[in-house]
């Protein structure tokens, strides 16, 4: 039986799909029975989703343009 502490320690392995089938079932069983750990894993998952949204929303148009100008000013081989 996994403890709540172990649930947090194995959370990355769980969300990355790296647990064996048996471990995965044990993990799911704990989540079914423990609402604290369900809250934990939901929040843990939300972190990556949030940061990814923020990351993708950034525009780099200005920097890209500047960089292209710099590169085109370089001497050709």
């Amino acid at each position, binding site marked *: 039986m996994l403890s709540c502490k172990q649930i947090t320690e194995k959370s990355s392995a769980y969300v990355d799909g790296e647990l064996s089938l048996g471990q995965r079932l044990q993990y799911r069983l704990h989540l079914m029975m423990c609402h604290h750990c369900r809250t934990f894993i939901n*929040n843990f998952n939300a972190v990556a989703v949030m940061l990814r*949204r923020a990351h993708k929303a950034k525009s780099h148009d200005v920097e890209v343009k500047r960089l292209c100008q710099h590169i085109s000013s370089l001497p050709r081989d």
Partner: protein
Amino acid sequence: MSIDTAKEAALLPALKQQDEQSFNQLVGMYYGAMIGLARSMVGDAIADEVVQEAWVSVYRALPRFEGRSSLKTWILRITANEARTRLRKESRTIAVEGLSPGGDGVLTGRFADDGHWTIPPSTWHEDSPDTLLTSTEMRDCIELTMGRLPELQQAVFVLKDLEDYGFEEICNILQISASNARVLLHRARISLFGKIEHFQDSGEC
């Protein structure tokens, strides 16, 4: 074939001739990933310079690109190398942290001896990631926390969770072992989790 792979394949012949337009297109495609990686390794202040130097290296090396990895992986690896070179010049190094036990940092002290929660996770006010991110303070706080993570933790997090790389490619780009990559990623995620939870509970960073 992913969209990026298809685009890369279409651009490659012209790129190898150092065609400027194709190269500008390439910069547009991968600048975001490169600056994210560079910031994670050298910090905001010199990340721009590192990316610029990396693009110059990419431009010069393109005619010799052999296609053993995807172009994007190759470019990110050059970026990581450029970042390391830069750190060496400034006598800073990136340490792969020792894999000490109990590295789950922010969660230490939240469990009883039997492994049950003593300070259980709080339910976040908003459960959708979209609404969570609407506050500027929250976004600033996350950026700040990201910036304070040890360099390789940030780098692995950026590559895995923001750029969708698999562990094999991450190890190739950063030249670390897969087991290190996994530990670093978990620590980064747990630290970010802890910070967001703290922000949710207290409204402060």
